[in-house]
């Protein structure tokens, strides 16, 4: 993972995509969080390898996905091969085996753009692939789980594209991991193999810590917008989701080895400029439970 300037990356993406598709793009993940918290400070960089672009609304995702992909190839963005895919797929590739749209900017191997979209319906929580047929080949546009929370009231940027609200990215990660699962990240994070749950829940803690740095009482405002977003995105089962919001985080805080993995990802990610100790990260978690998660869980009962 390389250090990149969030504002520079956002500007580059916005400049490269068709103008009429910009309003369909919401940047999510560490880049969005990095831009939100220190986008105005050019000296602060984010360590990331991908710029996750969420295409929404779902109904426009395929057309926007095709248009964006076509335009990026026209501007010499390069398909990023990996161990499974050396070239884009074709019409005979099954939907669930298509490569994602992962493209490096021209001459920039440090980071790549990846296109995603929101699930088709509130009940569709599984990972799904929808085909993007472009002149450069066939790709899959992935949607899963709680991604739909990240396109709720996104924050606009001067570049014409938006970023997801950090507190809703945190909520999506909390709900995505009601327990610490054994699955590890496909690559190493600074020489260490890390469980995906620890990386994503570590991101939650990093967002909480950065939010508190800006406003010490920020976490007290989270339950209201969390509930609002959950009701909007999951009108039938938001209440049951509310009850399990803190399950994975509690597990993380009680497991020193997993917490240390989360700390490691923070140290090599969003909190690189002021890395916390494991104990400090645990205290961020306890504050998050007390200020945001427990009030949400109580109102869901």
């Amino acid at each position, binding site marked *: 993972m390389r250090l990149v300037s969030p504002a520079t990356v956002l500007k580059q993406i916005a400049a490269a995509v068709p103008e009429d598709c910009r309003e369909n793009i919401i940047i999510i993940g560490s880049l969005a969080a990095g831009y939100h918290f220190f986008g105005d400070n050019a000296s602060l960089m984010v360590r990331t390898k991908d710029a996750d672009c969420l295409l929404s609304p779902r109904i426009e995702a395929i057309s926007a996905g095709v248009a964006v992909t076509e335009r990026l190839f026209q501007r010499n963005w390069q398909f990023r091969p990996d161990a499974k895919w050396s070239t884009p797929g074709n019409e005979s590739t099954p939907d669930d085996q298509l490569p994602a749209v992962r493209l490096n900017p021209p001459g920039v191997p440090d980071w790549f753009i990846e296109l995603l979209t929101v699930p088709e319906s509130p009940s569709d929580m599984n990972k799904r692939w929808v085909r993007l047929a472009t002149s450069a080949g066939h790709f899959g546009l992935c949607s899963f789980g709680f991604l739909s929370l990240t396109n709720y009231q996104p924050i606009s940027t001067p570049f014409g594209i938006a970023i997801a609200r950090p507190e809703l990215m945190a909520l999506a990660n909390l709900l995505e991991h009601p327990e610490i699962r054994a699955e590890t990240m496909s690559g190493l994070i600074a020489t260490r193999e890390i469980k995906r749950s620890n990386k994503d829940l570590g991101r939650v803690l990093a967002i909480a810590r950065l939010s508190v740095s800006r406003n010490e009482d920020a976490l007290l405002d989270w339950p209201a917008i969390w509930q609002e977003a959950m009701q909007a995105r999951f009108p039938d089962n938001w209440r049951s989701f509310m009850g399990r919001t803190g399950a994975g985080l509690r597990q993380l805080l009680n497991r020193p080895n997993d917490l240390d993995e989360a700390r490691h990802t923070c140290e090599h990610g969003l909190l690189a400029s002021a890395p916390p100790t*494991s104990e*400090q990260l645990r205290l*961020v978690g306890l504050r998050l439970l007390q200020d945001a998660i427990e009030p949400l869980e109580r109102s869901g009962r």
Partner: protein
Amino acid sequence: MKNAKFVGERKFAGVDAEIGNRLIAMKPRVAALRSVRVALMQLAYALAERPASAGFLVLPDVSVTPERLRDEWRLASSVLRSDVLNRLSICTGEAEHLVGIPQDPDTETQRAISDLIAAAGPRASLSLARPEYPFTVMELLVHQWLLGKGPMTTKWLMETAGCSYPTVATVLRRFEHCLVRHSDRRVQLRAFPKEEWARLVAVSEKARGTVRFADRSGQPRSPDSLLLRLQHQDRKDIAIGGVVGARHYHPRLDIIGSPRLDISLHCPGKTADMSFIEKLDPALARTEKRDEPASVIVHLVRRADPLFQTGEAGLAWADPVECLFDLHEARLEPQAREFLNSFPTMKDQM
């Protein structure tokens, strides 16, 4: 499973409970690694005599960091026999979420330990020594004098302080030189007792049982943020003192902001319920180090009547004399002087 309870007569030194084949040693609020080491060794001795038992050293509200506990465990591992070591563990965390070194206790053990913690009394409760009644009575005399309340009866002093007639009488005799005795046996201070006051200030921290809490997160909360959270606790035994309290009584006090929150906790009994601290901020930990910046300072008000003044939004105010002590303890001498002189009765006194 048998009910969890403390053993009446200890079979092994340092072991507080035996539940099935579990030996449990409970050491609340441990602040020194040395105490952990001693407790661990005592438990190991017990396990050596009980080859079929497992030992759990439980450390509720421990101030030693997890890193240092794990270091201590590594040291113990290097000297203990493996047949003892494999049956031994340290448990920290909250009753509902215990964390073990080297591994978490199983569900049944978790439950047993939680029951034991609950049986040991309210979490974060503090055992208290006998109140310093001479201090309390003198503080009451100063309180009444500063607020211009006039003379008071011995009965009022007894009831407000929560002590007996002989105790009050002894204190009044000791401070006879400061008093005016009226024909109806009521007493009051002759003037502001400058020398006695200086002595009270010098011992106030000890006499009031001041307890200090420091931030461990690296992101200390401001007094305003802590106040916001205190409002929601609805505790009738808590009042605000310090700079915030003094400014309530004297809004023109020459100070902007305060780096700490002074809280007066009414605890006339033998224990102080400190459970509000964790709700205030889980990142607060008790500290004995005077040079460490404290975010929250709790002063124990031991008398029967706390003399708290009802405030708004669920908060009460500590009495002015408590606030004055708080300013002195915070080394805010100019502000303490200004606050003291703001009382009309202090005119021409200093």
